[in-house]
């Protein structure tokens, strides 16, 4: 990694949304109970001040460099490229961050916000446990009390991460209501926040939730795209032709895409969880197969039935198993700036193995969806083109799941 990479600074850009009321076109907004309105308005105000404060970003950058280990490499996947027979494939190695995924970029930023606001207690929701671990990690780092809400189903499915959070000093609360998964964990975190609003900061793990969360989580994740841009210019002498990232809530994707939105020559692909296939209904792909509605504080594309109930989702990857998506993605879909597509469980599993064998990199199952789509895309492009895949997380957490699905005993 060259010296000038450490020059990539964070901050906000003025490209687009949200508007002053927290909307991305018709999406986003503040749809919460009255008790929480004051809390999100306070957060928006403080974030607005801090995001114009160079000292805040300097503190954040210092944490990213010394604690997270940034910048993360942009790696040329030579054997994967050869196997696909088309465009050159580069991997943005977010899996090499401390805690093994992009999630920590956001939790560091929000924990610093919490400290600036004088909050002593943080709460978080988690599905697979990656955001929970990243939250528990920064809570330990900054000496904050931490409670993580996790669906009871997920607590069972993701036992190693539960133990990891406990080792880090977090209290893990198993949520028994509803479908006992990520969306229910988020409901429970919102209830905790309403109850303990005076001393509690809620670290939302993705670019969803009420304004200003979609904005501030994006701003914290944009380090991914900024570094990628600088690295591309340095390694290729130009910008990449295409960017590919998986989309659950969409934080790693928006982090990669956002700094490139004005670069019209760069195509972008957000890959949702196609589960057992979009036609089966057993998936987690609201942008590909859902419709606009309101959930968890924002208007966005949702998996919702005709009566307006939120549907249960399915994905092999717990981190993508969510019925909503960040409102900025909903907007970028309507604007047709980003192409949203889906990869099935099976395609993701094949890509998981392919990257592992060809490059010696075990990707997270979430990330494997992006790899699956990018392999097809690369094959359809000429060898003088370049694709960047956001390798959003490492797959160590998933090896038990993969073994179970394939009938192997560990």
């Amino acid at each position: 990694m060259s010296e000038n990479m450490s020059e990539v600074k964070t901050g906000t850009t003025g490209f687009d949304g949200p508007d002053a009321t927290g909307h991305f076109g018709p999406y986003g907004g503040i749809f919460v109970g009255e008790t929480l309105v004051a809390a999100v308005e306070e957060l928006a105000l403080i974030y607005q001040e801090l995001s114009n404060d160079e000292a805040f970003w300097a503190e954040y950058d210092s944490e990213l460099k010394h604690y997270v280990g940034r910048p993360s490499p942009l790696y040329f996947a030579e054997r994967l490229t050869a196997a696909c027979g088309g465009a050159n494939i580069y991997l943005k190695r977010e899996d090499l961050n401390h805690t093994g995924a992009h999630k920590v970029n956001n939790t560091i930023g929000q924990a610093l916000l919490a400290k600036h606001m004088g909050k002593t207690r943080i709460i978080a929701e988690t599905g697979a446990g990656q955001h929970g671990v990243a939250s528990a990690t920064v809570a330990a780092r900054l000496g904050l009390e931490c409670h993580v809400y996790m669906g009871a189903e997920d607590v069972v499915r993701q036992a190693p991460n539960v133990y990891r959070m406990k080792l880090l000093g977090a209290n893990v609360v198993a949520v028994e209501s509803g479908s006992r998964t990520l969306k229910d964990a988020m409901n429970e975190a919102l209830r905790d926040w309403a109850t303990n609003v005076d001393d509690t900061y809620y670290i939302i793990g993705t670019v969803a939730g009420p304004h200003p969360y979609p904005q501030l989580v994006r701003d914290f994740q944009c380090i991914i795209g900024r570094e990628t841009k600088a690295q591309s210019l340095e390694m290729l002498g130009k910008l990449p032709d295409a960017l590919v990232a998986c989309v659950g809530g969409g934080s790693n994707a928006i982090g990669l895409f956002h700094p490139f939105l004005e670069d019209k020559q760069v195509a972008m692909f957000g890959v949702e969880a196609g589960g057992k296939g979009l036609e089966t209904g057993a998936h987690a792909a609201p942008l590909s197969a859902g419709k606009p509605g309101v959930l968890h504080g924002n208007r966005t594309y949702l998996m919702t039935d005709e009566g307006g109930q939120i549907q249960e989702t399915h994905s092999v990857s717990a981190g993508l198993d969510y019925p909503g998506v960040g409102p900025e993605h909903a907007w970028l879909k309507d604007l047709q700036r980003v192409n949203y597509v889906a990869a099935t469980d099976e395609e993701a599993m094949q890509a998981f193995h392919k990257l592992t064998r060809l490059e010696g990199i075990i990707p997270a199952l979430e990330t494997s969806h992006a790899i699956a789509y990018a392999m097809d895309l690369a094959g359809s492009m000429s060898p003088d083109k370049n694709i960047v895949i956001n390798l959003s997380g490492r797959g160590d957490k998933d090896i038990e799941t993969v073994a179970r699905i394939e009938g192997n005993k560990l």
Partner: protein
Amino acid sequence: MSRIKAITETAAAQGRKLLIPYLVAGDPDLAHSLGLMHELVRQGADIIELGIPFSDPASDGPVIQRGVERALAGGTSLADTLKLVSQFRKQDSQTGIVLMGYLNPIEIMGYGQFVAAATEVGIDGVLVVDMPPAESTELHQKLHDADLDTIYLVAPTTSAIRAKAITEVCSGYLYYVSLKGVTGAALTDHESVANSINELRQLTDLPIVIGFGIKDAVSAAAMGSLSDGIIIGSALVERIADMSLGTVDASALVRSCEVIGAARAALDGLQEDKAAS
């Protein structure tokens, strides 16, 4: 004049405190809900808040969550909730009905279709928990045009400036949330409720009712003495949880609603105390 306005004005003239029970439509099934609504009126309800079942009730505590899950297990939808009101109206044209719920089912039905149906079946007002005034412009306008009340919440965290803005768009009655938390939590700080209600009185002439944490005759009297009326939700839903599906048993309806009868007596007692003193 809207039905709610007529009810609240009559109550004010008579010195009667408003009693507003909340139940979830379809909990445990629609036949029981219909029976419960009529029984609630017999035991002294002035207005009924009818909950629209929603899969993700993020402002509700465990008791109402379970009520919602029972309703959803029976497949109760927003359309069924509207039909339930039309059934109720066949026998009762006096009691106010306010639909309370989350925005997504209304959003998916479409605002125009929802307001038309709500008007047709005889609904008087709508309270959408996760739709603060800033996000409600379009739905609010449609409700207003149809002469339906839009009811908003004011919470302990609501600033004075914001409360003033809320009172300017709210109609029917103002719902004061007594505590920081979710429905069914324990209400302990009576003094801060009293202070907040006094402050709200300076801002508006709307009737102010208190909800969250009122669970028996004692808390009903305490909160009723501070306000124009009270809302009881979790304490009723908790009793509905004991009902079994199938044939509607009249005595079970009476038993489930006794908490409302007791609250009515406690509220009326406040009035007698006042008259006597």
